[in-house]
């Protein structure tokens, strides 16, 4: 039995008082979701559902231009507009004017200049959403358009307009392992690859409710992935000490990286403090596209060298990522991409030059995979090219080069933990292929084009593609990564009940169900209560980087074991043995007082890059292999995906139901980038900010996904588990496009693949050559060398 609870029932009523009638499982069980019942009845309270008596509704004026000087902002008519209680501009921000995850380079409200289309310039609060929207339309924004940078290669040119005074290079990472220049190979293959900007498109848009508090502070109920890092960015802008800014997790309708950055948090708090009333922001879909960062578009130039037997001898890669107008987490994304650029293979000589630039495009940052999907798209296409050049089976070529425990990475350090690369490849390849189908007489959905009835079987080609990739679990590059947890065991109506309390964010991934499984297994109780996350306990770190099962899981495990130690002390004090293996009856006797313990889980400290890009930068690695089977209508360029076979490196399966859901859902996002998902820009302006124009896979687009988990426990991690949320997304795009190449024989070097590329009306993406390597002071992000005030995370 499980339920949600909250410390202050008046401030934050429980998301649901519903209790599940069944036992929700221990470690290894296919546990049903803790929040399944309230979500299925509509009772679950998302941030967009929050209400308070007398609350106001916030709205944002965003810049329509991507790069412009602000000549004038006239708010007089908006202030006089019906229902309006406050209109704020940059001058009204009482504290720090800027915020940001890695550097505080992003204005709370733009002043002087706007650097991307959609940048907030003014916010206001009114009595109703309609009045708030109407008042935004009455603000006069007088802009003088400036020349902008809308292309990532243009950003590197000497005469390009500067997005920021420090120039357009945000970070350049250089990895130099072995000696590529003097390496001899029997065969070399070259490639150029592009991937598009992708939107996380969580179904629940950004929302939050700020409630002014009697102590002059504010309580903020909000969608996020990391409460504490939000607070570290919010409080200085409000000019308040952190303890007067309390964050509470509201129901999150999906994240996928889109909740890593600040959206309306600071705006809502500013307006609540100004008006002394609760203020709610709730973005619609169009605004959501401007309200969060996106996956970086990439351009990749890469060269692979191998011996005749297929062994890789060298990889050199030049990566260019478009970071958009502000830093966000781009410095960490480009570092990740650099470390994974050679693929999950043993390569003795590797050189990577990886740059992320500022442009006047919308800011890019975290999205599931965090730099790895882009390079996987490139290195896996290269492996297929190499297999063809060597007349080797593509799966066999990958097996001959697979990393394993002890293999030396391009960053110069051997893999200490589990690395079952060969095993995921073999498990994936062993999944049966779908049966051949007759050309004619199928149901409509079994043809490319589906119910459109565009073919009866003419011009169809089937293709199979394979991809392997990897992703770091938890934070890298020396970040002091930790999660705090408190576990309380007490009697409730005579029954032992465990309360688990962390600041870790549940956004749909199933974390709270997992934490309840851990508490049940460690404490031997049935009833577990998950207290809603807030900032009144220590930081949990972000629910991102596939890290929270390991980090919050490890903290809860440790706290539970400390509770058990406390019970043992009580048992010994009462002369009742050592108190180990207590039965429930014994527990009742020992729990006349609740037993509480706190714990902080940390992983092994990693290292920064040295000047050659060497170092123990990642703590755990999670691998995955996927095989996609597609059928293409060669005349119309329509695609049907028949099957994705997936094998993931789970360490240890904690919840098979949750694992399958993560693999299937993560795969769907990779299929989307392969076939349809692209944020389209024109002069920096998003042209398809809706679900009518930005397509994500529907049930008709997604094939069955056959999931296999490979279990080689991670020796350093709690229970041996590994977070698997990202690795399926990393490989899915590469696998699907490989299958399209197999079906069409075309180069298809850009994701997403468009129908006109499949039929050959548009050729592959071409490049005149890789841009020159920028001159930077070192491996760290450029702002950190320029005495620019540092951001909050020190992630770099």
């Amino acid at each position, binding site marked *: 039995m499980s339920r949600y609870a909250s410390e202050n029932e008046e401030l934050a009523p429980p998301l649901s008082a519903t209790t599940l009638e069944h036992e929700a499982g221990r470690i290894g069980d296919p546990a049903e979701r803790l929040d399944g019942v309230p979500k299925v009845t509509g009772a679950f309270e*998302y941030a967009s559902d929050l209400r308070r008596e007398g609350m106001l509704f916030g709205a944002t004026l965003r810049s329509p231009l991507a790069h412009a000087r602000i000549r004038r902002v006239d708010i007089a008519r908006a202030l006089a507009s019906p229902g309006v209680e406050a209109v704020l501009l940059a001058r009204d921000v009482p504290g720090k004017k800027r915020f940001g995850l890695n550097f505080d380079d992003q204005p709370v409200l733009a002043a002087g200049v706007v650097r991307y289309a959609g940048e907030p310039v003014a916010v206001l609060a009114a009595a109703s959403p309609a009045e708030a929207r109407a008042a935004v339309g009455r603000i006069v924004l007088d802009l003088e358009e400036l020349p902008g940078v809308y292309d990532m290669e243009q950003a590197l040119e000497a005469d390009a307009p500067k997005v920021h005074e420090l120039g357009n290079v945000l970070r350049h990472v250089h990895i130099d392992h072995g000696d590529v220049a003097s390496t001899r190979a029997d065969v070399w293959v070259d490639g150029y690859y592009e991937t598009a900007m992708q939107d996380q498109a969580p179904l629940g848009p950004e929302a939050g409710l700020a409630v002014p508090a009697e102590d002059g502070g504010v309580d903020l109920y909000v969608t996020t992935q990391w409460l504490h890092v939000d607070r570290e960015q919010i409080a200085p802008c409000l000019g308040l000490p952190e303890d007067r800014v309390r964050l509470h997790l509201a129901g999150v309708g999906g994240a996928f990286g889109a909740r890593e950055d600040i959206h309306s948090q600071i705006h809502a708090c500013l307006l609540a403090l100004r008006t002394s009333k609760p203020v709610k922001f709730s973005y619609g879909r169009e605004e959501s596209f401007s309200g969060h960062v996106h996956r970086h578009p990439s351009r990749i130039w890469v060269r692979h060298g191998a011996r005749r037997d297929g062994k890789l001898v060298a990889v050199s890669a030049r990566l260019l990522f478009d970071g958009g107008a502000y830093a966000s987490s781009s410095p960490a994304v480009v570092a990740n991409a650099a470390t994974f650029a050679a693929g999950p293979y043993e390569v003795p000589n590797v050189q990577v030059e990886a740059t992320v630039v500022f442009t006047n495009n919308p800011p890019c940052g975290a999205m599931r995979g965090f730099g790895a999907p882009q390079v996987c798209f490139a290195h896996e296409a290269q492996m297929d090219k190499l297999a063809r050049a060597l007349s080797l089976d593509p799966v066999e070529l990958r097996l001959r080069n697979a990393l394993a425990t002890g293999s030396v990475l391009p960053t110069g350090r051997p893999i200490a933990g589990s690395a079952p690369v060969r095993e995921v490849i073999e498990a994936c390849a062993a999944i049966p292929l779908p049966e051949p189908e007759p050309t004619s007489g199928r149901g409509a959905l079994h043809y490319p084009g589906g119910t459109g009835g565009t073919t009866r079987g003419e011009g169809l080609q089937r293709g199979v593609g394979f991809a392997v990739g990897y992703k770091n679990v938890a934070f890298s590059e020396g970040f002091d990564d930790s999660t705090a947890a408190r576990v309380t065991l007490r009697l409730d109506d005579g029954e032992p009940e465990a309360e688990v309390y962390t600041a870790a964010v549940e956004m749909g991934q199933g974390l709270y169900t997992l934490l309840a499984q851990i508490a049940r297994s460690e404490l031997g109780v049935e009833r577990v209560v998950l207290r809603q996350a807030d900032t009144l306990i220590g930081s949990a770190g972000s629910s991102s980087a596939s890290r929270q099962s390991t980090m919050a899981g490890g903290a809860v495990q440790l706290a539970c074991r400390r509770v058990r130690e406390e019970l043992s002390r009580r048992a010994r004090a009462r002369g009742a043995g050592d108190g180990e293996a207590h039965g429930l009856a014994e527990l009742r006797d020992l729990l006349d007082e609740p037993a509480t313990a706190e714990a902080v889980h940390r992983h092994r400290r990693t290292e920064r890059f040295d000047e050659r890009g060497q170092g123990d930068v990642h703590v755990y690695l999670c691998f995955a292999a996927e095989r996609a089977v597609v059928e293409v209508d060669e005349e119309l360029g329509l695609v049907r995906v028949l099957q994705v076979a997936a094998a993931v490196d789970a360490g240890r399966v904690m919840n098979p139901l949750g694992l399958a859901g993560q693999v299937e859902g993560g795969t769907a996002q990779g299929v989307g980038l392969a076939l349809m998902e692209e944020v389209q820009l024109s002069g920096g302006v998003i042209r398809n900010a809706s679900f009518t124009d930005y397509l994500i896979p529907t049930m008709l687009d997604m094939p069955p996904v056959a999931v296999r988990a490979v279990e080689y426990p991670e020796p350093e991690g709690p229970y041996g588990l590994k977070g698997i949320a990202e690795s399926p997304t990393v490989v899915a795009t590469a696998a699907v496009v490989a299958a399209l190449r197999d079906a069409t024989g075309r180069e298809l070097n850009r994701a997403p693949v468009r129908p006109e590329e499949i039929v050959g009306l548009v050729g592959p993406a071409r490049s005149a050559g890789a841009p020159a390597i920028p001159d930077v002071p070192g491996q760290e992000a450029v702002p950190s060398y320029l005495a620019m005030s540092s951001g909050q995370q020190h992630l770099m």
Partner: protein
Amino acid sequence: MRVSCTVNGRPLEADGLGPGESLLSLLREHLGLLGSKNACEQGECGSCAVEVDGSLVCSCLVLAGQADGREITTIEGLSTGDGLHPVQQAFVEAGAIQCGFCTPGLVMATRDLLRRVPDPDDDEIREALAGNLCRCTGYQKIIDAVHLAARR
């Protein structure tokens, strides 16, 4: 504008509606029924699906005024007492829920499908539910849930 309708069997009335307000807005902003979700407000995602006189609609595409005199069923009207509707129970058991934002709409659409087609095959499910976007699950477990509900 004033609208009177029956929602989940209860006669309800709302006043002060704007002429352009949707049925979704009537339900969420005026009647406090927050189970129907606003994820796109363009009829693309199905998160706001409700029934109007027995027909499944995207409530964001129906004007509040069109609901006058009609019988509306929302996600809040499906479970009775302590018991979940079989479709709801199947979604919980099959692992068809992650963030859950799409779930109320998918439950409504599944209930509608099963009334028309009591034992749908995969193709019928895919076609019937293609108007409901889910970003978390990849849809596999949702198809499992529909089959599970059909068996009950």
